[in-house]
């Protein structure tokens, strides 16, 4: 298969999930696009070593993760979660109309980075808790705790918003 066809197929198969991952990681649509583009360009250059899409996705995810960390080392001495970040409203508009999904998206956005990332790796990218522990370089027990707290926080937030809505 010619290289560009192979690459095009790869891009199509990984783009939606990778872009979502980059977005939840950075919470910045422009940075997310740059991270995705950068990682895919590297994939283009090493295409011969990427045999199948599943392995390629992990490889690309790790590049996005590293470049994102590097970006913050260079740009921002302040820990991200202390900074006020506005929610990009465009993220709320999606093909579905379910207001609960929009609320959930907002709640995920507001989770602390340490909770948000493992949750996205698990739910969106399908990694096991053991794999997430390796990716994030923490113990599996710590991953389980963060995932537990992340879901609890989201559910609590949604329940509170329901109450407010009902008043």
């Amino acid at each position: 298969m010619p290289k560009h066809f192979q690459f095009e197929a790869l891009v199509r198969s990984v783009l939606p999930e990778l872009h979502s991952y980059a977005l939840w990681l950075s919470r910045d649509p422009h940075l997310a696009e740059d991270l995705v583009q950068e990682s895919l360009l590297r994939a283009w250059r090493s295409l011969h070593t990427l045999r199948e899409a599943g392995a390629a996705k992990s490889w690309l995810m790790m590049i996005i993760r590293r470049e994102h960390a590097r970006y913050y080392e260079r740009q921002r001495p302040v820990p991200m979660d202390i900074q006020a970040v506005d929610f990009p409203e465009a993220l709320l508009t999606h093909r579905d109309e379910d207001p609960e999904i929009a609320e959930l998206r907002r709640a995920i956005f507001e989770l602390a980075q340490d909770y948000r990332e493992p949750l996205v790796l698990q739910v969106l990218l399908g990694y096991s808790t053991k794999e997430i522990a390796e990716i994030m370089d923490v113990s599996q027990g710590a991953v389980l705790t963060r995932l537990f707290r992340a879901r609890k926080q989201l559910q609590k937030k949604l329940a509170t918003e329901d109450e407010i809505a009902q008043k």
Partner: protein
Amino acid sequence: MNCIDYRRLITSDPSHVGAEGLRHRLACSSCASFAVEMQQFDTKLRQAMMIEPPRDLESRVMLAASGRSTTRRRWLAVAATLVLAVGGVVTVLNSYSLEQLPDHVIKHLYHEANLLVPVSTELVPAPRLRQVLKRTGVELSEDVDEVIHAGVCYFRGHLVPHLVVLSADGPVTVMLLPDEKVDETMPIDEDGFHGVIVPVKGGSIAIIGSGNYPEQIERQFVQAVEWQT
């Protein structure tokens, strides 16, 4: 395993509770319903986490990979010449043939069949409609009436507005397609769907209903639509 341990486990990792967890779930009906709720929550979570990429990201990546500029503005400037110059890119930008367009529109309608039988006739609030259009680079210079659904859909490589408009003959689907350049009106007559794809200002609009042809709606959109490329 007791209830507390089981619930803790399923809240951390709903898809991998193991044999011991499964045994508890089978024996304890209150934890079984807790588990169902948790799995439903995860389905929603996954839905919420999936954010569609911007309409041109894929083509930008392909162009950048072929050794050209990576910035957006230059991309627009060179895109036209590249279509001719780079073999690989031609397949990206033109990977969907024009003849297949009516077919793809019908397929898309089936894909979102729930929209063909609207559950409510509530109008889409104006700010929501504006947001959908803005996100896809489309503008309406005049207000359009009776829009009961406005969503952004990934269609033939681009994010486009997918609207449902209420007419006297039932719901009419309107898809605004800035990137689909058609030379003349293409009729759609298939599976009980009647409609057209009309060329508008270098793009096109697909209008499909199942009753009489909604001329009024066509006129409204053809007049109002503006593409912001």
